[in-house]
């Protein structure tokens, strides 16, 4: 006679341990796969925004053409980074959307404040824009490190 239990695969202690090991390996595989591309994108965002803000410090408010050129280059770099990221990403680790949202949200807030203050209060100030660039790069760099170190660990 075959019972319901007999129809299922037997799960003894050895099988259970093997399946637990498989689950842990799968989690690690997803974390590694998902973190690589996300970390690269966040690092790219940090570098591009720091360079953009640092470049703005060299122009006075009246130099609209160079400011527009630098801004368009910055937008193009962000667009290229995003396209490469979206093509590469095959899995996002658990909680990635929340972590990514926090990192990009913090970047957006610092970037907006820096840009507003820089263009209205400190136009042409190399020192201000250098500090603003570093401050703006901090949130995505923190997010990038967290993906690589914390999530993978």
């Amino acid at each position, binding site marked *: 006679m075959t019972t319901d*239990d007999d129809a*299922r*695969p037997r*799960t*003894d*202690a050895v099988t*259970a*341990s093997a*399946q*637990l090991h*498989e*689950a842990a390996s*799968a*989690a690690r*595989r*997803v*974390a590694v*796969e*998902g973190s690589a591309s996300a970390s690269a994108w966040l690092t790219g965002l940090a570098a591009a925004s720091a360079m953009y803000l640092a470049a703005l410090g060299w122009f006075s408010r009246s130099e609209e053409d160079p400011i527009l050129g630098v801004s368009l280059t910055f937008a193009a770099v962000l667009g290229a980074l995003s396209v490469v990221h*979206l*093509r590469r*990403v*095959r*899995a*996002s*680790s*658990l*909680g*990635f*959307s929340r972590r990514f949202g926090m990192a990009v949200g913090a970047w957006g807030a610092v970037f907006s404040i820096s840009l507003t203050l820089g263009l209205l209060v400190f136009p042409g100030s190399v020192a201000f824009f250098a500090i603003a660039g570093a401050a703006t790069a901090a949130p995505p760099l923190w997010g990038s490190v967290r993906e690589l170190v914390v999530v993978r660990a």
Partner: protein
Amino acid sequence: MPDRPTADHPRHRLDPLLQRPVPFSIAALLAAADEAEFAFVRDAIQLSDSTLSKQAAALESAGYVSVRKGYLGKIPRTWLSMTPSGRAAFAAHLEALRQIAG
């Protein structure tokens, strides 16, 4: 004392669908992900497209997995993710496995 099986044994708490090797492997990947591309799951578990489709459909029917289809440019892509009830079922299944493993 009557000789009958006790329902307290952790094997009674194992999920019948997740006891099967392929659904378990799919669930193990998706439980660790917000979302995973169909091709990533296929390559990780080393399945054919048709087998993964069939097994993912079984998990979807059980309410454990949701399937999202979309495009990246002109390239069609399918994304799999675990539903909250799927996560709960997988967590309970893992807990039963831990008890069996001792």
